[in-house]
């Protein structure tokens, strides 16, 4: 039987409408809890949620939500690849930041013109992210170091290395901000005016995010590699018996996870800030973990999760306008993740029982002689 952890990280699937029921229940539950917190704090929850809904439906906010969610989604994909085979890549955070530093340094140096510079920058980020993650993979298969521990350590090291690179090699001082040389205008990834009436276009990387989501699905569900990966995640012993080289899978999966992690910093670098500065957003990797849990590693589920998360993150200003503490957003995010986990667990148990009943019912119908059931 699957362990709770398997279900937590979505290595066990839920069928049909149940897969949708769980998150819906969870979000309703989270709204309920948050309302209670708001009431205790002396705020009007109805007004608060109405404000959130209103705020979220305005074009500038919608554009911002989309832009924020692009990075979140790619980061969640990076986490999910690992989750599907029981690897906890906590190091997405360090991988994308280090990748962004090096890519920003290279892109800012503008050794190639225009589109070639974009390609070079992206490839650089992918390679750096993959290599950084590979360290944890290699440590795991050669020395048995838990990837949870090693990636957390590598996050700290990535911060130090990135800071050192910026201070000593890539950094240009501008006022009080130390940043890499800005990537030239001809190598900016253009935005797409998706949302009418928004002052800013939607980050062009949204296209890449959609492609990556589809690639993730195809890789996991249609390829032999994906099958091996999922089999290893569900039952390592069965995978070994089936001939999967688990050590090679660990390294390969970490490399893929790190490569995608490297990409997750690119929407910000090539589509928004064009340099790696002290203000480069942090914590994307951890947000990715939450979203992967929320979306059960399902490419569509994670897209919804990323949008929801981005919506909540951007709504802190709207809440502050109502004199509601912005921390309520974090409470809500936490409650959603928790209730999603609980809801999936309940639904999962229901499904197991339901399926066993269904099988025994359908088998009982045609009475054939032979066979005794224990």
């Amino acid at each position, binding site marked *: 039987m699957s362990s709770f952890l398997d279900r937590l990280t979505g290595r066990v699937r839920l069928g049909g409408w149940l897969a949708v029921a769980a998150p819906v229940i969870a979000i309703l539950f989270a709204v309920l809890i948050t309302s209670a917190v708001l009431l205790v704090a002396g705020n009007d929850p109805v007004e608060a949620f109405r404000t959130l809904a209103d705020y979220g439906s305005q074009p500038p906010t919608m554009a911002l939500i989309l832009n924020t969610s692009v990075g979140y989604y790619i980061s969640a994909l990076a986490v999910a690849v690992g989750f599907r085979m029981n690897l906890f890549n906590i190091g997405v955070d360090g991988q994308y930041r280090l990748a962004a530093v090096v890519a920003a340094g290279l892109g800012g140096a503008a050794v190639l013109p225009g589109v070639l510079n974009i390609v070079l920058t992206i490839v650089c980020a992918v390679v750096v992210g993959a290599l950084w993650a590979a360290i944890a993979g290699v440590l795991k298969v050669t020395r048995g170091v838990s990837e949870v521990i090693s990636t957390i350590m590598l996050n700290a090291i990535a911060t130090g290395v990135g800071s050192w690179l910026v201070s000593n090699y890539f950094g240009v001082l501008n006022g009080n901000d130390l940043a890499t040389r800005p990537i030239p205008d001809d190598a900016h990834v253009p935005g797409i005016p998706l949302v009418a009436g928004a002052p800013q276009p939607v980050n062009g990387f949204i296209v890449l995010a959609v492609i990556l989501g589809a690639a993730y699905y195809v890789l996991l569900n249609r390829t032999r590699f994906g099958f091996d990966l999922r089999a290893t995640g569900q039952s390592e012993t069965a995978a070994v018996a089936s001939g999967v*080289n688990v050590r090679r899978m660990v390294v390969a999966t970490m490399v893929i996870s790190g490569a995608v992690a490297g990409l997750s910093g690119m929407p910000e670098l090539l589509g928004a800030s064009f340099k790696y500065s002290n203000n480069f957003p942090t914590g994307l990797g951890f947000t990715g973990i939450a979203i992967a849990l929320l979306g059960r590693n399902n490419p569509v589920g994670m897209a919804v999760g990323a949008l929801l998360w981005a919506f909540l993150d951007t709504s802190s200003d709207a809440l502050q306008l109502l004199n509601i503490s912005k921390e309520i957003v974090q409470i809500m995010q936490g409650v959603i993740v928790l209730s999603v986990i609980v809801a999936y667990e309940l639904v999962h148990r229901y499904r197991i029982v339901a399926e066993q009943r269904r099988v025994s019912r359908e088998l009982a119908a045609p009475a054939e002689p032979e066979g005794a059931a224990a």
Partner: protein
Amino acid sequence: MKILYGMQRPDEGEIRINGSPVGFHTPADAIAAGIGMVHQHFMLADNLTVLENVVLGSEPRKGGIALDFAAAHKRIKEISDAYGLGIRPDATVEELGVGDRQRVEILKVLYRGARILILDEPTAVLVPHEVEELFGNLRDLVSQGLTILFISHKLDEVLRVADAITVIRRGTTVATVDPKDVTARGLAELMVGSELPSPETRESTVTDVVALSVRGLSVLTDGRAVVDDASFDIHKGEVLGIAGVEGNGQAELVEAIMGMRACTADLLTLNGASIADWSTLRRRAGGIGYIPEDRHRHGLLLESPLWENRVLGHQTRRPNARGIWIDRAGARADTRRIVEEYDVRTPGIDVDAAALSGGNQQKLIVGREMSGDPVLLIASHPTRGVDVGAQAAIWDHLRRARAAGLAVLLISADLDELIGLSDSLKVILRGRIVADVDPATVTPEQLGSAMTGAGEGA
């Protein structure tokens, strides 16, 4: 059975204990009512000690919070000695063989103060004299006023140990009989609803062509040889049986041949080609089929649909794969074929493997491993824990494949099965192959004593 233990709710009907009706929502309710269950598939945490496993969930308290391990240790020792279970409380479960694990399970239930014991296929993993010991224990328990529900497919055992027998087929009570009034054959016919299967193989199909050749194979674990210098040949059309008490190196031998475990060997060839350096995948693709000892751990992805389980272990070969892609249509079609040919009772190929009964799971595995024209089939306990109908079907398939030239390495704890199916039989003891036995002449009792070393050199 799951209902009795509170793992499932009944749709209708009632349960009475000592005359009063009870309703169980969870196993905890059942435990509280004095019902204890020994599962066929052990529910033990591998990396905890026996002591920890036993107290898990009913931890002895001292002063409210602190765990009183000393007291638990003492009680476990007492129970173990009282029923002759021979359990060392401080060993980790990981180190224990299957037989020991089962005794831990029984002890766990007794520790919880159960008055009614449910034993699900308890003898499947035991050799004859261990079975005798177990029955002795069970009789002791009964004489002390405990009630035992003994679930088994082994009819002679049921006849010997039970005071009353209820036959269930497809979830319905077929008959309740007194063991004194019924023969094993009569009982079996009640169960199967048709005539009795037997593992007897008729004429020999052994050829001269060697399929698998093993010379000087050793497996070291922590510096100790768990398989020590094993050598044998299996010819096409031959079933080679390995008899041995659980934990004497059979599992390691199988894993070494499958390439799942490091080993040293002077020679390891399949169809004349050396496979010593081959990966597990290549060995499988090269024609080794594998029915693992523990189908839940090694044979199936329990929470994946049947057709994905069809792919497992065959993910590089047609009809499951084309190049780097999984061929869904091909795999699904072939799964339907297996379900059809091997009579896997399932509503469809999209249900999870976990939803099937053990017998049907095993038939699926057998069907899968027989596909792709294997040269050699390694069958570890192929009929462990499956119902009589499935057992007969699996035996049939093995015999047919053998007649078609398949070489089979058969490991089993079921001595009748070993003797009945094997063309030649070797006994393994403490990792060494200690004896060759002729299955045509040996009795289960002789074989049992050879396995325990009592009749060394027999």
